[in-house]
């Protein structure tokens, strides 16, 4: 399946864009998405940490991704 990954903060700088399109297996998990992204954008691994949000909720590594989900990379937050 083809998915679109939104990027914010430093993730936007790393991707060079506010979103990237990716090809993932239909039964891909969040941890597979992270692995694939890190292959393509190794600077992601230098972050203190980062989360994946699925449909505006923090997702767990073992959550499944669906083609219709809204996916976003959440680097360490620093609001307030």
């Amino acid at each position, binding site marked *: 399946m083809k998915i679109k990954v*939104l990027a*914010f903060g430093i993730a936007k700088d790393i991707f060079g864009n506010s979103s990237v399109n990716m090809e993932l297996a239909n039964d891909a998990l969040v941890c597979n998405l992270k692995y694939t992204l890190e292959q393509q954008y190794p600077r992601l691994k230098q972050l*203190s940490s980062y989360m994946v*949000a699925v449909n505006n909720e923090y997702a767990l590594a073992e959550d499944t991704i669906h083609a219709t989900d809204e996916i976003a990379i959440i*680097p360490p*937050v620093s*609001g*307030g």
Partner: protein
Amino acid sequence: MQTEIKISSETLNIQACIDWVMLPESGGIDVFIGTVRNATKGKAVLRLEFEAYEKMALAEMEKIAAQALEKWPVQKLLIHHRTGVLAVGEVPVIIAVSAAHRDAAFEACRYVIDTLKQTVPIWKKEIFEDGEVWVAAHP
């Protein structure tokens, strides 16, 4: 409505926030106002830029507000957060909480700002004379 959550690129209005939470039943209001500091670790900051994943940030702030209402007997609770470019002295965040008794207002207000800084997808970039850095991004 007991809560008002807003993300805005316009200057935040402190007095309006306080007026919104104040009720005839209120005995005390605690307000936290974040301000843009002119330096970080001794280095001069020219300005800050705030970016939000707006839909999710609003959802996370709604969650925090709901948790605070559950934990403490507060009356009204407001969270306003700025986005965009902010100069030193400008206000990125206002949290205002009214309650019949001050303990609840203080505790809920502190809980909201502490939790907001941990979970709400908003990012701050510090702009220095010689570069810029996304706060907390790297170890």
